[in-house]
């Protein structure tokens, strides 16, 4: 077991494209770190550099305090689980799992006992003599994990290991991976493009975009205190609502009413190069049906009225989509996120996603009064994407002094 340190690591391909730019990351011993981001953000390249499958163009990579830049994968003592599983089809499950041990020239008995042990942990014992072709997707995935854990490496690298499984199995395997990592206490770097996996699995999440780290932190911190527009939009499902907000006379004019701003934000906005237009971000769960809000809570927020577009009842709560008038928020980050989600903007007005409590009597087609929490609002600079409401790493809403 060991810690992994990336010190200003960069990757440039021979054709000149920069896949990863000056990444600084310290992964503690036994930590479970997730690299997440849209496709092409450099997360897989970063993982491959840690693995040794890609050369490092610049910077230093240290595993367990040792510089390993020039070491071959086999000398780094780390195991990897591939998205495609990459099982050896000519070998049985047992031989697949024994392969790394055989290469390490362990004696037969040790190999056998280690394989049996790993098989027991992953419930693969009855499948040991089958070939990969005769296994289901979930079983193959477990064999791939077994091959990684069997030789007790310094670290695990996982490259979207669950993305080929169907939704139900993925949720199940997520808990398996999580439990396994806790049990073994091995440093793990896990790459995914699925923000749900990132939120649920990791001790810390690294959000990447265009070869650079956007923010590093525990999932909850990223969710509540996103440093910029990209992080805010990437984390959370359904994702954060973004509205255009014009700065006017100490207020923000938005499609859901005039939002007052506090002293600190006002100070930020009086600077010379301060933007005249902002993007207001608010998460779906910070809305509530105005009828269900008590007076105490009501004072902390604002109300507006809008036509209900669609109601999705989830049982525990209701996702309500409103149509709101006004200019659409636009920024490079938002377009990138939409493109990654495969969504094309549909014309006319902005759509607002809210999560209201299940008791709400909201119906499709009517106009509904909705309350939202001012303390949970984020304000972003559209040109830089910076979260203006963030102060010393904490986000404290628009009203903060």
């Amino acid at each position, binding site marked *: 077991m060991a810690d992994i340190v990336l010190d200003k690591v960069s990757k440039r391909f021979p054709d000149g494209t920069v896949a990863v730019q000056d990444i600084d990351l310290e992964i503690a011993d036994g930590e479970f770190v997730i690299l997440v981001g849209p496709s092409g953000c450099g997360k897989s390249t970063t993982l491959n550099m840690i693995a040794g499958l890609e050369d490092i163009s610049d910077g230093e990579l240290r595993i367990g305090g040792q510089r390993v830049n020039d070491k071959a994968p086999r000398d780094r003592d780390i195991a990897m689980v591939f998205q495609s*599983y990459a099982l050896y089809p000519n070998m049985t499950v047992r031989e697949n799992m024994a392969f790394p041990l055989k290469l390490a020239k362990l004696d037969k008995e040790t190999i056998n006992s280690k394989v049996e042990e790993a098989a027991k942990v992953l419930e693969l014992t009855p499948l040991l003599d089958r070939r990969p072709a005769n296994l289901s997707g979930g079983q193959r995935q477990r064999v791939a994990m077994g091959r990684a854990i069997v030789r007790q490496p310094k670290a695990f690298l996982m490259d979207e290991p669950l993305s080929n499984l169907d939704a139900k199995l993925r949720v199940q395997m997520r808990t398996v991976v999580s439990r396994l990592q806790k049990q073994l206490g091995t440093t793990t770097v896990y790459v995914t493009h699925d923000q749900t996996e990132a939120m649920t699995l990791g001790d810390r999440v690294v959000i990447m975009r265009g070869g650079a780290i956007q923010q590093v932190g525990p999932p909850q911190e990223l969710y509540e205190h996103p440093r910029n527009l990209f992080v805010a939009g990437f984390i959370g499902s359904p994702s954060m609502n973004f509205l255009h907000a014009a700065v006017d006379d100490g207020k923000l004019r938005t499609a859901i009413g005039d939002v007052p701003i506090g002293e600190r934000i006002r100070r930020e906005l009086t600077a010379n190069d301060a933007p005249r237009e902002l993007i207001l971000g608010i998460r779906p769960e910070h809305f509530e049906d105005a009828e269900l809000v008590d007076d105490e809570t009501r004072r902390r927020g604002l109300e507006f009225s809008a036509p209900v577009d669609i109601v999705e009842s989830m049982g525990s709560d209701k996702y309500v989509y409103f149509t709101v008038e006004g200019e659409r928020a636009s920024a490079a980050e938002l377009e990138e996120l939409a493109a990654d989600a495969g969504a094309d903007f549909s014309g006319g007005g902005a759509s607002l996603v809210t999560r209201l409590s299940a008791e709400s009597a909201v119906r499709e087609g009517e106009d509904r009064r909705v309350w939202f929490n001012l303390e949970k609002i984020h304000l972003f600079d559209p040109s830089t994407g910076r979260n203006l409401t963030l102060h010393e790493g904490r986000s404290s809403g628009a009203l903060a002094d």
Partner: protein
Amino acid sequence: MAETTTRAKLRWGLLDVIVVVFALVPVLWIASLSFKTPATITDGRFWPREWTLENYKTIFATDQFVRALVNSIGIALIATLIAVVLGAMAAYAISRLDFPGKKLLVGVSLLIAMFPQVSLVSPLFEIERQLGLFDTWPGLILPYITFALPLAIYTLSAFFKQIPWDLEKAAKMDGATQGQAFRRVIAPLAAPGLFTTAILVFIFCWNDFLFAITLTSTERARTVPVALSFFTGESQFEDPTGAICAAAVVITVPIILFVLFFQRRIVSGLTSGAVKG
């Protein structure tokens, strides 16, 4: 539905029989001739009236044929082995690496395969005489490798391309060196390709007549196809048809054995289950 499938089966069956008969009759005819006595050899019957093993005894009695058979087997096996090993390495590089001039290399190697061999025979004759390779085993093995390599590279790179690259990465992560990854993971998976290539190359070397007749002059390196053409009867007036037929049957046998032996190894779908497909 059932009727049409039965009729379709009949139609296909008939077609298959015609093809097989068309292909096999000459072979069987030769086999039949090889068992006939000199007196009945021209009787035009498919089934010999009198069976004899005399023709076989004749060819094995002369040192000429046995030497040629040894030459043929040795030269073809060595050429096949070298061509497949070299071809496998080249094909592996071509399918895995992106190096400058890759397309050119593949193009040039194909060009060699397409070059009319007749036009090379005279220069090769001169070159080999100068180098002292004329009428030796290497003198035939070298040109065979030259012409077999493009074929080997081409078929093998197609096979290597089918093997997922992730497998090699996985092997490296599991602690294998480049060589171990190739030997223990990639090569076993490419085995069907290696055997297919080996069969094709072997048949090419085994059947060659042009190089063999130009680049040899004695029993030292003369291969069977050439030896066959030098067969003479016991007197110059006797036509050695029976012996030639017997020899033809004998040299067909190694090919059949070779194909049958390796065919069992050519299992398709060996890579299924490696990666989520």
